[in-house]
């Protein structure tokens, strides 16, 4: 009986939907967009940020990073500071540490570049993951001077050694040194993110000075009952105490913990939460729209419902009949959304792979996992409740006697008027919030990606090369390598100018503290050591890169030689530390934490500011040194393309092979691609948010129009009454426009507040001014305002086209 009743209701709902195919298609697509887009965003963010790492206790694992002046910029920590933290910190246990580096690994077909992690012996214990072959290493094997050993990743084992079961004990040539392979890690394991090799760190701070020890990231497990915030509060106090002991070098330096996935977010949590809010709001917007369309259909069918009531239909049956329409629309829409989302997640896997030159973090596996499917079902159920229950309840609770008598409705009921107003205000609120935050993120991202880096990046191929200590042990050998490479490349027909630098403009560089001659840096005068990017570059590179000379000269042959001490500074450095005085001829030097005085450097030139990295890093001034004075191991090469990109790349590889057959070039790409890649994650999330924003525009635009049109439609009889009483068209239009304006204000004000709150937080994150937010907000107010006004004007005008007598009897 019950079964047949349900079947009857389903069949009735299907018949009704089939009768109005355009309505069915529209509502289904709106629901598909709402559910698909929202669940996609949640699934995407869950995969990269919220999901526990795929090993035992992965959820309690935290990483210690360094902050600077309150910015959580994922710096490495001074090892001495970390050991101090370890001694004092409560609420975490099982400390470990690591840092990552790029290494050259020699193979039969030449050397390749891999990502190596230098780790403490207990590193793998923290992830509760033993090697699948071989063993971990001991404390004894982590001592300096002990034999070189390594563990390799599953992929490396498969790719280089074809999964050789007898790999343990074999040698692998890393940066020119033979290392014994002692273990192979399981498939998919690349902790902390995309590691290929793990090597003993072989350093202990007690054996090294503060300046000598390599900075590291710390790892630990959070104790049960301790929160990340609790630990970060302790870390603030500990780091303040350390700063008091080392005021010049540790000024503004802090430490903080996050889960491993959140480490890369740095201070971008506002972006993440904005994305989640936007996703949720888009879903609500879609549900409101479909709910409104179903509500207006329910109003259209009042008479039919009244007849059913008169014939004795129970209320539950009426609700059930109307609910089936929602169930069918939301389920069908959800299914379409799910299919598109599954495709979207697959595409996301490919797009995100372009964010990094390394493989993606090992836990970034996008797809229809348990979380996504559970959330999908939850959203479908919520959408059914939101879209179906309200119209069903409203219609079943109507005064059907009045409806059947076709009389006493007098004018629209107060309750339905209130519901309509609430719907419009909700739509306005949501669309304002979504649009202001989405556009703020998009604009911030656009500005971020279009900063002037201070160099000409067009028509240029860049690449990186690591000169290992083993193969290039002396500074002279590195200088010789750079000179040889430059001259051979420039003499080839495929390549124009060649620039070699530790870091090219646009890319994040190592910073250092300096001391300017004549200034006193004491705790008493609260003078801090100036901080700047410390970049070595070959002679001629700055000019060839198009970095403009402001004063003095570029480096020339007179600066060549390890015994020379000259520098070129950026205008930003000059302004900050010499003010209006000339900086040419002034001297400064590097601060050494081990107390050993460094040589004074004489400023010979001032060039335009170069942005080294994005975000706050773009504003840090730079100090350039001739590569011949400070030759570094890792170098970036930039080559002006003469013929085509592939010929340039081939030429680079051939030239490198001719100099050193075991020296690979990596991160080979166009200069512009490299710069774009840095901002690619931001571009992607801002594009996603903008996509939600666009969906919100379409949903809100059509939704506001739909609700307004529906509201005015329901008030047609009222318009007729007012006309009968002598109101002319202008008066009625004015009255309805005023009502529309009031709704715009009621929904818009909190929407502007919420949107500006999120927008301000986003723009602040990128150091953008309030003026941008004001322009964005005003534009969106105008935009939404226009939609509301048009959505009010057109249906009112349409209603006024009727004669009053017609409007009075309009149903």
């Amino acid at each position: 009986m019950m079964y047949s009743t349900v079947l009857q209701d389903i069949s009735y709902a299907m018949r009704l939907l089939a009768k109005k195919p355009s309505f069915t298609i529209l509502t289904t697509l709106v629901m598909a967009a709402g559910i698909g887009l929202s669940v996609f965003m949640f699934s995407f963010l869950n995969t990269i940020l919220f999901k526990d790492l795929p090993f035992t206790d992965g959820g309690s694992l935290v990483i210690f990073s360094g902050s600077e002046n309150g910015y959580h910029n994922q710096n490495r920590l001074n090892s001495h500071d970390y050991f101090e933290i370890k001694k004092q910190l409560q609420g975490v246990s099982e400390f470990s540490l690591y840092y990552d580096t790029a290494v050259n690994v020699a193979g039969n077909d030449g050397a390749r570049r891999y990502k190596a992690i230098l780790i403490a012996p207990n590193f793998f214990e923290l992830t509760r993951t033993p090697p699948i072959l071989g063993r971990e290493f001991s404390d004894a094997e982590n001592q300096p001077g002990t034999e070189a050993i390594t563990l390799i990743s599953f992929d490396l084992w498969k790719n280089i050694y074809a999964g050789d079961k007898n790999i343990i004990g074999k040698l692998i040539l890393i940066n020119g040194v033979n290392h014994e392979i002692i273990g192979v890690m399981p498939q998919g394991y690349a902790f902390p993110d995309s590691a290929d090799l793990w090597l003993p760190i072989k350093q202990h701070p007690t054996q090294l000075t503060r300046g000598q020890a390599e900075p590291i990231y710390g790892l630990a497990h959070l104790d049960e009952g301790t929160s990340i915030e609790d630990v970060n509060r302790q870390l603030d106090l500990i780091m303040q105490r350390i700063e008091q002991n080392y005021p010049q070098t540790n000024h503004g330096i802090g430490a903080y913990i996050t889960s491993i996935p959140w480490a890369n977010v740095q201070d971008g949590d506002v972006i993440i939460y904005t994305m989640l809010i936007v996703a949720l709001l888009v879903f609500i917007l879609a549900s409101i729209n479909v709910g409104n369309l179903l509500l207006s259909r329910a109003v259209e069918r009042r008479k039919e419902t009244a007849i059913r009531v008169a014939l004795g239909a129970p209320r539950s049956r009426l609700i059930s009949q109307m609910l089936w329409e929602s169930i069918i629309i939301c389920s069908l829409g959800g299914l379409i959304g799910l299919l598109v989302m599954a495709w979207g997640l697959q595409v996301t896997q490919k797009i995100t792979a372009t964010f990094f030159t390394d493989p993606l973090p090992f836990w970034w596996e996008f797809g229809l996992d348990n979380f996504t499917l559970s959330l999908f079902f939850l959203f479908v159920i919520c959408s059914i409740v939101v879209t179906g229950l309200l119209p069903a309840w409203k219609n079943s609770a109507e005064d059907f006697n009045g409806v059947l008598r076709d009389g006493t409705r007098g004018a629209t009921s107060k309750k339905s008027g209130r519901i309509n107003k609430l719907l419009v205000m909700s739509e306005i609120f949501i669309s304002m919030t979504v649009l202001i935050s989405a556009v703020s993120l998009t604009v911030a991202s656009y500005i971020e990606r279009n900063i002037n880096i201070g160099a000409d990046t067009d028509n240029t191929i860049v690449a990186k090369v690591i000169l290992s200590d083993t193969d290039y042990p002396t500074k002279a050998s590195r200088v010789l390598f750079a000179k040889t490479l430059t001259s051979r490349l420039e003499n080839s027909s495929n390549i124009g100018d060649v620039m070699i630098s530790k870091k090219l403009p646009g890319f994040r560089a190592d910073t250092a503290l300096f001391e300017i001659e004549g200034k006193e840096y004491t705790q008493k005068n609260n003078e801090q050591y100036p901080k700047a990017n410390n970049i070595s570059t070959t002679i001629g590179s700055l000019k060839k890169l198009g970095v403009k000379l402001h004063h003095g000269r570029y480096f020339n042959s007179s600066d060549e030689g390890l015994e020379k001490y000259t520098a070129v500074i950026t205008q930003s450095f000059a302004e900050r530390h010499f003010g209006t005085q000339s900086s040419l001829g002034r001297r400064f030097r590097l601060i050494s934490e081990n107390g050993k005085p460094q040589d004074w450097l004489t400023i010979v030139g001032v060039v335009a500011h170069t942005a080294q990295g994005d975000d706050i890093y773009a504003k840090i001034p730079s100090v350039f040194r001739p590569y011949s004075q400070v030759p570094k191991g890792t170098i970036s090469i930039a080559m002006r393309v003469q013929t085509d990109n592939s010929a340039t790349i081939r030429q680079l590889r051939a030239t490198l092979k001719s100099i050193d057959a075991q020296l690979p070039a990596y991160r080979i790409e166009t200069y512009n691609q490299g710069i774009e890649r840095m901002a690619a994650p931001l571009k992607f999330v801002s594009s996603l948010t903008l996509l939600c924003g666009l969906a919100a525009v379409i949903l809100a635009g059509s939704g506001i129009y739909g609700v307004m049109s529906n509201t005015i439609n329901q008030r047609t009889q009222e318009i007729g009454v007012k006309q009968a009483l002598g109101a002319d068209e202008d008066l009625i239009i004015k009255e309805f426009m005023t009502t529309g304006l009031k709704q715009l204000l009621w929904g818009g004000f909190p929407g502007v507040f919420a949107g500006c709150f999120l927008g301000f937080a986003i723009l602040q994150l990128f150091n953008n001014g309030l003026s941008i937010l004001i322009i964005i907000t005003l534009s969106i107010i105008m935009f939404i305002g226009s939609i509301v006004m048009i959505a009010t004007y057109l249906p009112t005008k349409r209603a006024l086209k009727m004669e009053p007598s017609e409007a009075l009897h309009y149903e």
Partner: protein
Amino acid sequence: MSNILIRLNDVNKVFYTDEVETHALSNISLVINKGEYVSISGPSGCGKSTLLNLIGLLDTSNSGIYQLLAHDVSGISKKERARIRNKDIGFIFQSFNLISDLTVEENVNLPLSYRKDLTKNEREQFVLSSLKKVNMEHRANHFPSQLSGGQQQRVAIARAIAGNPSIILADEPTGNLDSENAETIMTLLDLLHKEGTTICMVTHDPRSAKRATRSIDILDGQIIADKNNNQTNLNHINTHQTDAA
């Protein structure tokens, strides 16, 4: 000075739906004098409400001449029609047609609020006096949903008379009411008539029709009878005869 309030000459109204022509009114000619109490009766669909709509300027005719207070209003603009409705015509509907968002007082004030020649104080006085006339001043701050059907219709009458119109057009004013409330409303209309208000009422109810001083019967869009209820003679008249009268 002419006593004629309304004059219709050869008025026709045709509705077009899906290529079907419906002649709602055919060659209607009619005069209503000031102070008359006219009832219009006839079966459903005969055109009585259409006639009332034309008289009330809620609709326009396809042909013919309509004079209100000696002015030809047949081809006037929508704006001018609205102005005349506001100033010279008061409507009472079967379904009351009160605005549910407005209080009783605001509902009655509604037509007055469209007039520019009245001050706020004048409007308040008009509202109060018309509410007193229908004995609803004590419910001035209530919303229509808080009133019974009869009370709602009394408010509607107050709204119709608030601006002191030249004529009150009532379309089945007791159609949605029980007999007790219907009697109250009819008594009110009688009272208004006695005070000199011109009333034109469409009704199905013969008892209500008899309370008018003149009864017009319509069938298939044509006037088939026009009788003075104070006389016994029944005049079957054509439009020209009525015009002459």
